[in-house]
């Protein structure tokens, strides 16, 4: 099963290597990874999506906590959470295709962030399913390039 882990770490050199090394060294898989500073100076938040059965996820969480540079690890799959990912797409938009692309842009609430005669660059945010659906649709028209951020996530305010 896919899990989203939110990891609060010291923002210092080598932290990413420690986390990434832990995954590769122990044979765990990183699907997506995202790091950025938090509001507290010196701390960064990592969001990692990974897969594994319960025992593996338990080990991953414990091993991450064991790293001296880690302050907190939360498995956001265990609580109610919101997840978003941003994606940029360079799409073929020559002639007739242009109208169709723009229609899809509308439906998926994408933004057109760059225009040229034969292609458009789109920006979209959403959960993984939405982005996958969009890719599936646009692939019929022609996607030239994709850049995705990987998921960021946060627990919801109301937990049952």
């Amino acid at each position: 099963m896919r899990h989203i882990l939110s990891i609060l770490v010291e923002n210092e050199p080598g932290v990413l290597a420690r986390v990434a090394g832990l995954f590769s060294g122990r044979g765990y898989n990183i699907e997506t990874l995202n790091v950025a500073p938090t509001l507290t100076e010196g701390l960064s938040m990592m969001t990692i999506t990974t897969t594994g059965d319960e025992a593996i996820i338990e080990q991953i969480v414990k091993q991450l906590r064991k790293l001296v540079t880690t302050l907190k690890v939360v498995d956001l799959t265990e609580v109610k959470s919101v997840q978003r990912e941003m994606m940029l797409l360079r799409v073929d938009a020559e002639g007739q295709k242009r109208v169709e692309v723009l229609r899809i842009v509308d439906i998926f609430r994408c933004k057109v962030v760059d225009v040229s005669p034969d292609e458009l660059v789109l920006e979209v945010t959403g959960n993984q399913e939405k982005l996958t659906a969009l890719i599936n649709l646009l692939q019929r028209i022609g996607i030239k390039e994709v850049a995705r951020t990987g998921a960021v996530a946060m627990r919801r305010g109301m937990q049952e």
Partner: protein
Amino acid sequence: MELTGAQILLESLRREGVEVVFGFPGGAVIDIYDQLPHYPLRHVLVRHEQGAIHAADGYARATGKVGVCLVTSGPGATNTVTGIATAYMDSVPVVIITGQVPTPLIGNDAFQEVDIVGITRSCTKHNYLVKDVRDLARVIKEAFYLASTGRPGPVLIDLPKDVQTKLTEYKYPKTIKMRSYNPTYAPNPKQVAKVADVLRKAKKPIIYAGGGVIASEASEDLAWLARALDIPVTATLMALGCFPADDPRWLGMLGMHGTYAANMAISNADLILAIGSRFDDRVTGKISEFAKNAKIVHIDIDPTSIQKNVPVHIPVVADCKSFLTALRGILEPALAAEPSTPHEAWTTKVMDWKAEKPLSYAQDETTIKPQFVVETISKLTKGEAVITTEVGQNQMWAAQFYAFTKPRSFISSGGLGTMGFGFPAAIGAQMAFPDRLVIDVAGDGSIQMCIQELATAVCYGLPVKIVILNNGYLGMVRQWQELFYKKNYCATCLDVAPDFVKLAEAYGAAGFRVTDPAKVESTLAEAFALPRPVIVDVVVDREENVAPMVPAGKSITEMILV
């Protein structure tokens, strides 16, 4: 007061109570060595950096204090990697200081540059590259704190040459608090109460102790528990010495080369108290067959050890000592009020297993059995020497046939299985305890991996004794080849070997050779009495096997007994 980085390092080591530093100089640490004579630190100049790290490790295992090792950049640093991994696998507190090329050169492939922080990231508890001399005092404080608290382990500090010469105001922190590192020492009281309850109700309990018992100095508390509730005790290689071998409850080591009684008892128990141990594959054998009917209580200071290999019924994250103290606090009054119901049937059964198939060998008049040598060492030293081992058959025979009476008297590379460890580790232990008898039980293969440290032992007048169980083979691999590879003795015969007696003498140590079983005891006694380093080359039965043996991947009840 302003000090240079090198002075800060040495002054901080002094304040941490460091007495001995094992090291080897080089270009990137000359500035530290230049200052070394001004500080009250004994420096042991080894002959290879691997010797330095193993010696620091041996010192730490023998004393419980943090071992310190100082080496230069590049090859000096990489030569310590095996030793760092050894200390990491066995949770030994060591601080390694490596020199590094000057900060402006880092990343330039400079002479003797290596990214040792990157290389050791996965085999240290933590590591640091200090780029600013103002961080140095705090980093050293943190390094000692991290190495010695929680689950202990090696911590490396990489110190660029220019940082060693820069000046800064020196202020050594008295205490340290790290927001991202807070090991749990005290057990959850509810969990302790549960453990007390199941222990009292168990009909077939067993204690399975690991290195954590030694690390947390909890051996006496463990012995109290075993005696108060009359529970048989087995232990891992790392925990030998945590329970006296002459107590009837002692079953010996368990696992691949464990005793029949220990493996049978743990396989048939209804309650396993696993304390400071980690269900290593050499202990459990085939995991799906391991102790199927037992409820498992697991106490460990490292949460990652719990539920890693086996499902646990009562997990307790705690320091072994704190846990046992808390448990005793509950059990003592409870037992006074109402004594436990004895589990006589179980005790009898366990004693039967012990009597039925004890560790054994057959010594004849012509060929020396390696087990006999270890037993003789045990007899001569009354179980009170510090025994280090190399890795392989020598290690297993030492573990099986030496009757340990005290913790921190068995020093062996358990997790990593590092050949070449025992001799430098013995040097470390002897530096810590100049008056104790320190004996490295070695094989003719392993001893050659760090033999150069004979010069160190001679130079510092360390009377370490090396007893080589010489069978002319890499014996453990040969044993596997015999049993599982149709006797295809590929690359295991050491038919070209040095004359170890002459070798010892060449280094300025003493050398003895024994070939006659009748002379084993007298030669060992003579060697042990010499106040110098000695090699005793004991020519033993070439194809003697370590038994029992559980073939890899089999259940630990499937032992090959002879």
